């Protein structure tokens, strides 16, 4: 399922990665994954999903060999790959899929993929390697959703152990795992992707949250690749002849979500005023050092199929913002903005720039620098207004149902809009492309105008790797590090 090789792949060597986004609370429970380190390790190496988005962007099977749907996109039948075994020797089958899916809806479980899985009303085992899933409402993107990094396949009946030890069906099995410190993986002896992927003998993923240390590790040759290159120093890094920059334009965007349930963000005028008081170009120039594009408070990016390119741009207009504040019945506005560089590289700077540009609109933003560790558990979804990033999703529906659908756990603005909700459901089951386009455009319009999140910029994925590494030439743009599949798709030249 990997893109066609351009150069001959070679087997061998241990790939050492320096990855940001690790925590001591990390575990092999894919339901809880939200940061790059564990996504890389679990989704990218140890575990497999039913489907996979290839480097060139099309959907291919991973543990599922093929799938088909009824015309209303309600009933999906998956044919599973045969001869697949888990790292502990257990062979893979339909039971594993069912139990792995049930994990997300178990009593008390908190999974980001819960909305996806809970749309399944019935699971039927048609055979050892065949499975039928019936959805509540039709969803044309359902196979796409099955490639979500939360929905990894665990061995049935051994999930507890698999979560503790990291037992999946992936190319690499866990040799050592020290949460927040280091993960050591080794190539399984034989695998269904043999000959197509998995060229390294082993992988060492080192947690390096400090960006300075990470860049240094790459430059001094202590790791072969790093994620999240510090934009500030990207131009300097480029000067190093031993290192290449891996820049892809994806849907990653940096956001400032406000909890729309709380005053003053419950007032749409206030939200609009804030949207007009940020100087987006300046942010792209200074925070991203030009590695990205101006955002329009819309999570659907140019890489998406139904991107609405003709949406009116929310631009920097202090006068308009002032006016909006007045319309909201306020004299001026004073708000706290929580930020930490854990949200995204340069988040504090972005917040400070926001603060400076908002001053022109008579808005007094108080930037609260939050501690980096635990930012996601203590600040995001907690503080009324904070900095955040989204990797973006391959499909519109996926993106929306992750963070904009009413009541989903990651709806980080708590925004609820009846029309939006209605459109979301209709478009989901709509198989007519033109109609879908209209529906998605309207939704993007709604979010951009009324939504609770300020999206000032789209950031390219900028990773860096040593010139010793080679790749097929086609780089996935769903996540950083070749859609987090560098370990599968790359090799030592």
């Amino acid at each position, binding site marked *: 399922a990997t893109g066609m090789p351009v150069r001959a792949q070679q087997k061998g060597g241990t790939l050492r990665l320096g990855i940001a986004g690790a925590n001591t609370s990390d575990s092999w429970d894919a339901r809880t994954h939200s940061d790059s380190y564990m996504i890389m390790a679990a989704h990218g190496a140890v575990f497999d999903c039913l489907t996979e988005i290839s480097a060139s962007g099309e959907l291919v099977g991973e543990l599922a060999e093929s799938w088909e749907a009824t015309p209303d996109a309600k009933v999906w039948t998956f044919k599973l790959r045969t001869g697949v075994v888990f790292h502990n020797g257990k062979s893979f089958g339909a039971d594993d899929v069912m139990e792995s899916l049930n*994990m997300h809806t178990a009593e008390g479980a908190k999974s980001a993929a819960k909305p996806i899985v809970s749309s399944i009303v019935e699971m039927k085992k048609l055979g050892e390697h065949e499975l039928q899933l019936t959805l509540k409402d039709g969803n044309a993107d359902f196979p796409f959703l099955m490639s979500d990094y939360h929905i990894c396949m665990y061995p049935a009946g051994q999930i507890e152990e698999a979560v*503790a030890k990291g037992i999946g069906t992936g190319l690499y099995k866990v040799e050592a795992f020290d949460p927040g410190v280091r993960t050591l993986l080794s190539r399984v002896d034989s695998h269904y992707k043999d000959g197509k992927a998995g060229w390294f003998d082993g992988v060492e993923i080192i947690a390096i949250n400090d960006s300075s*240390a990470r860049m*240094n*590790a790459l430059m001094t040759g202590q790791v072969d690749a790093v994620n999240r290159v510090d934009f500030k120093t990207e131009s300097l890094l480029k000067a190093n002849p031993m290192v290449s920059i891996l820049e892809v334009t994806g849907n990653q965007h940096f956001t400032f979500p406000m909890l729309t349930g709380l005053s003053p963000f419950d007032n749409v005028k206030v939200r609009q005023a804030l949207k007009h008081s940020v100087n987006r170009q300046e942010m792209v120039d200074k925070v991203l050092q030009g590695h990205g594009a101006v955002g329009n408070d819309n999570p659907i990016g140019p890489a998406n199929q139904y991107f609405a390119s003709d949406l009116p741009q929310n631009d920097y207009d202090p006068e308009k913002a002032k006016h909006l504040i007045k319309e909201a019945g306020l004299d001026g506005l004073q708000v706290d903005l929580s930020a930490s560089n854990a949200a995204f590289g340069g988040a504090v700077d972005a917040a400070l720039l926001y603060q400076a540009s908002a001053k022109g609109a008579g808005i007094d933003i108080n930037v609260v620098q939050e501690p980096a560790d*635990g930012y996601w558990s203590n600040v995001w*979804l907690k503080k009324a207004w904070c900095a955040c990033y989204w990797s973006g999703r391959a499909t519109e529906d996926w993106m929306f149902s992750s963070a904009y659908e009413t009541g989903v756990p990651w709806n980080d603005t708590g925004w609820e809009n009846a029309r939006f909700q209605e459109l979301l459901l209709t478009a989901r089951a709509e198989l007519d492309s033109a109609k879908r386009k209209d529906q998605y455009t309207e939704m993007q319009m709604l979010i951009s105008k009324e939504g609770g999140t300020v999206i000032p910029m789209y950031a390219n994925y900028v990773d860096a790797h040593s010139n010793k590494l080679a790749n097929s030439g086609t780089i996935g743009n769903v996540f950083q590090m070749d859609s987090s599949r560098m370990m599968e798709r790359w090799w030592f030249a």
Partner: protein
Amino acid sequence: MGEAAANLILHEKKPTGILDSVLKIIAQRLALGLLTLFIVSIVIFAAVNLLPGDFAQAILGQGATPEAVEAIRTDLGLDQHPVKRYMQWLGGALQGDLGSSFAQANFASFVGEDSGVRTSVAQQIAPRFANTMFLAGVTAAIAVPFAVTLGILAALYRNSIFDRATNILTLSSISSPEFFLAYVLILFLAVLNPWLPSLSNIYDGMAFSDRLEKTLLPALTLTLVVTAHMMRMTRAAIINLLASPYIEMARLKGINPMRVIVKHALPNALAPIINVVALNLAYLITGVVVVEVVFVYPGIGQLFVDSVKIRDIPVVQACCLIFAAAYILLNLTADILSIVSNPRLRHPK
């Protein structure tokens, strides 16, 4: 009569007296240390429990239903009265059971099966602590002999250019923020001259030489941080004694200056030197968070900071307790060594 025989006579005379007084002092200090540790545990427990928010909320985030929060709280015992929790924790700690980490307990319990695979705090801390001890050990092995030798030389050649230069250099190094020193060392020893790795990602089962190599740069940074203190104390303690009559006596016996210092001044300056060494060792074990961050060294300081952020109370408490115990133990050791190095206490009248 040989010395041994004479020794025998002397020791035979008052063996109990010697043992008694030293043992009594040690027992006293030990009891005091335990008391301190006990109060520290209360202070820490109180501080940790005052931390805003709790683990359940920290982990569940906004999507948490009250039931889920309650479930986690019950599961972790967070719903019980703090005093009761403290007693349980203390009881466990006394039996060597520091509880199990919240973070590692994680959500595994919601798979539907009974867990039993929770990592205990002890398991989690042990490797980190071992790493920290290793770093402290390497640093101490470099810094202590280095500092003491420098101190002796500086005392011997006091007021010479050598003394002044050493003084200025060590003062400057102690005055610089740790991260500054770390970056400067990285700059010169890893970036401009790629001699040492700037990344100290050590792990279990690493060859000792690799481990040493990776630890060298943080150890050097810490050496710069702690050397000045020890060196200056050695120098000052020795120079303080140089005016004493017995040093003058030694000089007037025609003993050469080096021997005067090593043989006559140093043994009497041991107590302050031991104390400052202990203080610095305690610092090495407990105060190296910044260095760990810069070099990505997986020590206990990092773990502590991480755990505070996610409100992983058992880990935080255990870390604090270990820090306090290390501090108290080192002070105790210093006390005892000072006593043992002092003939007045070793051989009472």
